[in-house]
């Protein structure tokens, strides 16, 4: 059996742990640059007349009027709280597949002799007690069914966030309950196609002949079909797959005209992605850099361009990557526009130990692993970009994302600890 554990309104819940004054009150978390709502807790979702997940400027007044508290996203905090949850799950089973920041599959195979319902409640209660985060637990024979069981644990109030799909009747009942679009892995396009052939519930889907599913939805659909039948097809991955491409692109806090500041932002993003690259022990072969103005603006001249450069030798060295990205940026930059966003994307990612030298390339002057390792260590200890390439400059606040309402990094910065007023 497989358990799918996921945190309820994770980002909002992380904020609430440290803010008892907000318990039971509506809370939303905003995207990078405070552009739109990306997470809302149950209390906020209940305010049905406000279109949540909308651009902030459209709903800000309504949020304030309804006493909704909003936070800029604080990924440092969410990431650290997520790690705590995953560590605790690790004490329940040696096989935990971290699926996303707030979801994990836990292999509970071999524990069927236990009362799985009590086991599920145990997981839920322990995580809540130790971290303050509410979770839901769904247990079923396959991953796709576990995902569905998890959904039922939340949507059907009588389950109290723990649902165990351990009999054939329960499986059929679940399939009859679930809309086809609720099934993990079935996208909007497939939903439309399935509606055409009269498939609305998950149960209708499993009644389709396998040959049809294979023809229309490829091997991916076939696996889903089998998983829903209770036959496990999706393997358990305890190690995350190395990423094939790593990129970042964020809007500037304000529109930028001059190359200098854009260069600095570009160097900053490269620094971020190079860290990810090193964390997974790989090197990148290509860097794509792109730059564009605000598509939505009616008064601005529009320009958008991207280019890809090949590194002489695949590398994860921040300085080497910045230097090449800068050349690429100079190539595409044109003066006279108000730019909204610069983005970088590293691809051609290969394991560090497979990097081949280049006969015509001198060993790079940048290639000092100890320097980079020291840099990583310092930044880990003293916080992001404590030591960085001078290319990043010192004007970060002139272009960086607006994070007006970010909460303190309670769990990673000694200077930002939760402060409590001593009162009787």
């Amino acid at each position, binding site marked *: 059996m497989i358990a799918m554990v996921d945190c309820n309104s994770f980002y909002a819940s992380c904020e609430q742990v440290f803010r*008892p004054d907000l318990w039971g009150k509506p809370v939303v978390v905003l995207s990078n640059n405070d552009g739109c709502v990306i997470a809302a807790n149950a209390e906020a979702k209940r305010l049905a007349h406000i279109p949540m997940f909308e651009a902030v400027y459209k709903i800000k007044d309504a949020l304030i009027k309804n006493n909704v508290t909003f936070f800029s996203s604080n990924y440092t905090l969410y990431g650290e709280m997520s*790690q705590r949850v995953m560590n605790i799950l690790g004490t329940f089973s040696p096989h935990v597949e971290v699926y996303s920041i707030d979801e994990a599959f836990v292999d509970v195979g071999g524990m069927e002799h236990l009362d799985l319902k009590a086991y599920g409640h145990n997981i839920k209660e322990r995580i809540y007690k130790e971290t303050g985060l509410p979770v839901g637990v769904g247990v079923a024979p396959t991953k796709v069914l576990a995902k569905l069981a998890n959904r039922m644990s939340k949507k059907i109030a009588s389950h109290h966030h723990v649902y165990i799909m351990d009999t054939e009747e329960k499986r059929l009942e679940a399939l009859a309950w679930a809309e086809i679009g609720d099934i993990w892995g079935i996208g909007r396009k497939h939903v439309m196609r399935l509606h055409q052939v009269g498939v609305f519930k998950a149960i209708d889907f499993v009644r389709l002949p396998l040959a049809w599913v294979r023809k229309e939805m490829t091997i991916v659909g076939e696996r889903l079909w089998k998983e829903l039948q209770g036959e496990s097809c999706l393997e358990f991955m305890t190690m995350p797959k190395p990423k094939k491409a790593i990129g970042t692109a964020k809007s500037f806090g304000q529109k930028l005209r001059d190359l200098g500041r854009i260069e600095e932002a570009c160097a900053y993003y490269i620094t971020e992605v190079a860290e990810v690259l090193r964390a997974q022990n790989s090197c990148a072969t290509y860097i794509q850099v792109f730059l564009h103005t605000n598509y939505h603006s009616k008064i601005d001249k529009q320009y958008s361009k991207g280019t890809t450069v090949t590194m002489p030798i695949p590398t994860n060295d921040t300085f080497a990557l910045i230097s090449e990205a800068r050349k690429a940026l100079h190539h595409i930059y044109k003066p006279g526009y108000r730019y909204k966003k610069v983005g970088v994307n590293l691809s051609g990612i290969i394991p560090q130990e497979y990097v081949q030298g280049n006969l015509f390339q001198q060993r790079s002057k940048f290639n000092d692993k100890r320097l980079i390792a020291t840099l990583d260590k310092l930044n880990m200890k003293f916080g992001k970009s404590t030591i960085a390439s001078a290319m990043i400059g010192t004007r970060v606040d002139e272009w960086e994302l607006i994070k007006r309402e970010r909460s303190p990094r309670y769990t990673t910065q000694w200077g930002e600890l939760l402060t409590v007023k001593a009162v009787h």
Partner: protein
Amino acid sequence: MEIQYSGKIKKVNDAHTAEVSKQTGFPSAATHYMEAPIDLHKELTIHQDATFYIRVEGNEWKSYNILHKDVLIVDRSLKPNFEDLALVVQDATFKVMRIPFGGCKDICTLWGVITYIIHYAR
């Protein structure tokens, strides 16, 4: 960094060269008695995934030996015992109290048990 020349090929020798004495002879008498130095984090934080550090502002909790700017180590995983010092939530505010007989169920919500109070003495 040292550059090695052998014919036409230049090679950088970047092997780690820490300053180690070339002296031979009788080694340190402590060789077989070395231990890792004390790590306060390890000693004071028993359940890492359930422990939070919280700073206090003001002297109102003097009677609990908690003073202005002290940092509380709060372990959420512990089951509170009678008389334990605990961080609780009452009327949507954090408070410190000693756990009464039978727990604090009706009067407040337990946030975590205080295990240590870090006080800067200078």
